[in-house]
């Protein structure tokens, strides 16, 4: 397989094909300890009212297929390892988005001993989407803006 992959890479290099501007982005979601509000709204972003797929945004089943890791909730001590494993499984280049106030470390409720903290205390965060929870259209708009896409949501 590696021979085949290196042959393909050589052909691409020799042809010098330019990558086009990104038009599709694959998102993998990890709930690191949320109240389920962000999950409902991320799900709603795919409903007929919002339909994030029209912007080329797609929620994929595996971190191995993802460009963006979308993390919700404060990071609980029990979710730290699964979160880091999902991140490590992603191909590079990869981005991390913190979805919702908890993920951003705002107004956290609970026993401090059960948290590791906000997402940026664990991973480098590229995209910040505030709200409790952020509305479905806000989720799409913030991701597109962060990618420098001005088509709007």
């Amino acid at each position, binding site marked *: 397989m590696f021979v085949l992959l290196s042959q393909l890479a050589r052909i691409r290099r020799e042809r010098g094909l330019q990558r086009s501007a990104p038009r599709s982005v694959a998102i993998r979601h990890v709930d690191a300890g949320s109240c389920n509000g962000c999950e409902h709204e991320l799900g709603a972003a795919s409903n007929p009212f919002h339909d994030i797929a029209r912007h080329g945004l797609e929620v994929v089943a595996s971190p191995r297929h993802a460009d963006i890791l979308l993390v919700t*909730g404060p990071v609980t001590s029990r979710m730290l390892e699964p979160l880091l494993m999902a991140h490590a499984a992603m191909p590079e280049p990869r981005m991390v988005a913190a979805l919702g106030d908890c993920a951003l470390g705002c107004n956290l409720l609970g026993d401090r001993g059960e948290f590791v903290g906000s997402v940026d205390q664990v991973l480098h965060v590229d995209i910040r989407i505030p709200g409790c929870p952020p509305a479905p259209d806000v989720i799409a708009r913030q991701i597109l803006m962060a990618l420098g896409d001005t088509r709007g949501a």
Partner: protein
Amino acid sequence: MTELVRIDAAQLRQATELILAEGASFAGAWASEQAGIPMWRVLMSTSRGTRALTCAATEPIPSITDLVPAADWDEREAQDLCGVSFQRETPVRTLATHSPRAQDWMTAVSGSGVHQVAVGPVHAGVIESGHFRLHVVGERILAMDPRLFYKHRGLERAARGEQSDAAIAYAQRACAACAVTNSVAYAQAVEQATGTGPDRRLRVARTVLLELERLYNHLNDCGALCAGVGFAPGTMAFAALKDRAQQLNMRGFGHRFLFGTVRVGDGGAHLAADESDALRSELRELQVDTAAAWRELSFAGSVQARLEGVGVLDADAARCMGAVGPAARAAGIREDARSSSSGLAYDGFTPASIPSPRGDVSSRLQIRGVELEQSFELLRALLDGEMPAGSASIAGERSPIGVGRVESPRGATVCAVELDGDRVGRMHLRSGSYANWPALAEACAGNLLPDFPLINKSFELCYACVDR
């Protein structure tokens, strides 16, 4: 009024048997503290109100799980999170503590050809985090062990010492999809402990909010079931109906999940007459469109055929496991906390029923259809002109403990609050989901592995308000 009955730990089993013989039902159990001494409380719901059997937890406590199988998770949680120990014939398996040793938390399964399938905590869809360990032979599920508490945030511990009115935030934030239920149950518990009671206006306002919460949740669950069988048109239609219900929440109360609308001692939401009328007529439109979508779903033969006979939880099993809500009613148990909610406006309420309750996935979908219609009708009757916020006033004496019991979209949710002056001494939230998780595990046994997502979605339980 919740009566605290102090007994010796050695008498707990006998006292439990006695109260069960009187027709009481188990409503939850939690570890607490009184004058520095660890205590164990077992809450029983009787026809005359709730009674909390309470004993010191300094020594191992005799387990009651052979008398009340529904208390299994409560005891396991208290062992893991509060260090209470129990005397059982077999070792008490861990629940909230994630032991790396399989025998500490899994069902012991052996035999030729048995293997395990591990799912989660990170799932393929946009779903909360939790792990399932399925023991299978070929395609057949022998047993399923849910391992939750990945999202444990220590909310109950953090609420300790907070002002009792401000600490409602801990109940609300436990779970977005049950935010109103959990907050109302908490408010009722504090109000009972402080000897206050809601006036008619507050009862109506809280009931409206609870039914709006049920509406978007039930619409969500119908869509989730469609997704479970790969019926995309149904998934999308119900996702759109759910969104419309949440848009109404936003327009009427400023939040799609109705956050901040419930307060202790008074109302946090009101509607002017024109707002109430607008909400009523928009709900009427939503009701018509929901009925149309429901008809389509009923006649989608390929969908319906996939649901029948799958994931059966019969009435005996449901009763034994302590199942509540639509899961219990789909098995023919006509119980609903709304029929005994004196602090709310459910006068003359009759629990929903379906013609032939079989306790399968199909029945759990059917019961939601009936309950959607019921919620629309309740809201139509309650939204009659201006909806004032209402308030609560002194109605009786203070008591050391208060209990609120509210029907969430997933079943009876119980919140117990022990006050220490005007601060929270102990808060315990036992949601409808918490009561139903062991029943879900039971319903999976004997089914095909590929049907697990479908069975799971037919219960559509929360993880967040279990993990807390």
